[in-house]
């Protein structure tokens, strides 16, 4: 289904969706992030990109898995905490983030199904916004199989056409969302489609960063695993968690028991985001750490994204959103690192 929605009607559409929880980019200070929106009429879709990707809606940084309580050693009461299935819509997702969620779905729903993620995902409709201008100078989605108007993972894709949005449904759920307020939409005229193609092609051209021979790099990575390449490239790394926490596909987590009361014992088992750059990530209980230095941790991040995942799922674990480049406190640039991999000779 392909429709035209006048920008004036956008907020009316949102108002009609009052049976859904609506998430959209919200600005606080200088930082944008996806938040639950109380007044959908205030949503502004003209935004750069958020610091934290929309994965936080489906895979929150803190998730309570179960609650436990024990009054004696013999008896421990467990209560599983399963998220409520509340129909939700995330508005204004960029194509890179949407494909990130599609990749997360492969991880959390392929093989073993993660209830927490999938319960939320099943009830969430993703409405994307094509990028007419790359939201960040570090965008490189076209190098990793994406595009600024990719429909991968989306239910609806909207494109800004000036005074109106070109709204295209990708899935049945998306179609239903449009139909629920069909009176607000118009059929597109013929020349509009040409215009749309033009906008899309132009936006692709505006992306400045590019990774050459990504397939070759991917297969070359294991060859340079043991080289001092990683020592050199990681010299300025400070081992913070910005790159992975801001990554739309990084999904490692840690599970901890948070004790609220020691007697009678009461607490929660929670899952929180974890990070391959942190010192305790691979720490064994013996005290041995197989990834003791920053070289091995940077290597892990690159290998996981461009080699391991590629071997397992035949795709890259990177969507080219450029967040890790823009936000790195010491200017480590994943595009440059990969270029150096490409030209590296032992």
């Amino acid at each position: 289904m392909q429709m035209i929605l006048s920008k004036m009607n956008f907020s009316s559409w949102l108002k009609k969706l009052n049976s859904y929880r609506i998430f959209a980019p919200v600005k606080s200070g200088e930082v944008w992030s996806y938040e639950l929106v109380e007044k959908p009429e205030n949503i502004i879709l003209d935004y750069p990109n958020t610091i934290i990707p929309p994965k936080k809606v489906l895979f929150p940084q803190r998730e309570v898995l179960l609650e436990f309580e024990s009054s004696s050693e013999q008896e421990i009461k467990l209560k599983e905490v399963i998220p409520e299935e509340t129909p939700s819509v995330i508005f204004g997702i960029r194509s890179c983030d949407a494909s990130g969620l599609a990749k997360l779905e492969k991880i959390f729903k392929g093989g073993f199904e993660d209830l927490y993620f999938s319960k939320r995902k099943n009830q969430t409709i993703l409405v994307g916004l094509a990028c007419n201008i790359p939201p960040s100078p570090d965008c490189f989605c076209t190098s990793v199989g994406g595009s600024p108007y990719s429909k991968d993972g989306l239910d609806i894709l909207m494109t800004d056409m000036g005074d109106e949005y070109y709204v295209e449904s990708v899935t049945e759920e998306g179609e239903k969302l449009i139909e629920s307020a069909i009176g607000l939409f118009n059929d597109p005229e013929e020349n509009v489609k040409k215009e749309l193609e033009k906008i899309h092609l132009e936006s692709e051209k505006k992306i400045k960063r590019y990774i050459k021979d990504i397939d070759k790099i991917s297969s070359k990575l294991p060859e340079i695993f043991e080289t001092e390449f990683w020592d050199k490239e990681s010299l300025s790394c400070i081992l913070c968690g910005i790159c992975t926490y801001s990554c739309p596909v990084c999904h490692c987590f840690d599970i901890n028991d948070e004790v609220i009361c020691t007697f009678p014992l009461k607490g929660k088992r929670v899952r929180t985001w974890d990070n391959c750059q942190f010192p305790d990530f691979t720490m064994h209980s013996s005290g041995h750490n197989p990834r003791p230095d920053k070289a091995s941790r940077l290597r892990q991040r690159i290998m996981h994204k461009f080699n391991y995942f590629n071997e397992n799922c035949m795709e890259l674990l990177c969507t080219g959103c450029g967040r890790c480049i823009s936000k790195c406190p010491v200017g480590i640039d994943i595009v440059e690192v990969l270029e150096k991999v490409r030209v590296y000779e032992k």
Partner: protein
Amino acid sequence: MVKLDDIKKECKSILEEGKVKYIVGYKRNNNYYMSIPAFIEKIEETDQLIWDPTCVYNLVRFLRDEKLRKERQKTPDTRPIGVIVKGCDSRAINVLLQEKFIKRENVYIIGVACEKSGVIEKKKLRKKFNEKNIKQIEFGKDNNFIITTEKGKTTISAEEILAERCIECNNNTPVIYDVLLGEKVERSLSEHFRSLEKFESISTEEKWNFWKKELDKCIRCYACRSVCPMCYCDECIADSISLAVKPDTTAEEKAQKIRWVEKSPVSSENFSYHLIRALHLAGRCIDCGECERVCPVDIPLRYLNKKMEKEASEQFGYTAGLDPEKPALVSDFKDDDPQDFII
């Protein structure tokens, strides 16, 4: 004014003489107007070095990596490493010496005086320029910065985009160095604790609302800790390294284990983490402002440390990083330390 050629010359000569293993300095980011840390090993690489108002990094942070690297090597190269430091950064070296974390002979200090300017603050810059258009920022004459954009060069008074910490800085000249480049210039741009003034006039509730709003944003990426030259603890209180859970660890034992800070990014844990960090940096923080700069969600972390610095200075007459021979703030006392608040 500090001449870049002087920096390059000095670096070349110490590399030639084999005095240092490598030099940590600043170089240009290929795709961005900011500098990035540079690790210079070869003489020809010294041409990459730059010195401009985007040299914000406190490179003393990397002495910790060098120390760890050396500990892992069987026959380490024991030569010192060279490090380019600004006034604030040099005080960090003094603190590390004072705490005996490094030895003086481990480091060759190339001090660079900020004279009458300092480094930029991106937040201020963004208000005046579209970051995407900026090509380069340089020191100009008379306390000005020259900003090159696609449209050409603009001169702007340094104070307009100078980092708040530079405006409040008292140590524009390095306090410890092997070689000093630039001149010792007396300057007083502003009051040393000016940024804290706005907190003095607000009520307890307003203070709480401010910090609650700010610290609730924290995503616990620990960039503040990671970038800090003083945060070198092997086991940080925020990590779970010391809490190894073995197969025979009972639920009871787990419950009894002290965990000062949980990993969850909820209000109470964020407060615990940031308050403990501020207290651990009391008398050690040298106000390089790196924690605040790297924060991805813009928490004004510097105020917490600045507050501790202010109390150390006003109540105990202590300033961090001036004298490595003196005892540290909290491992010392005076008989007449203030105690009016004690009942």
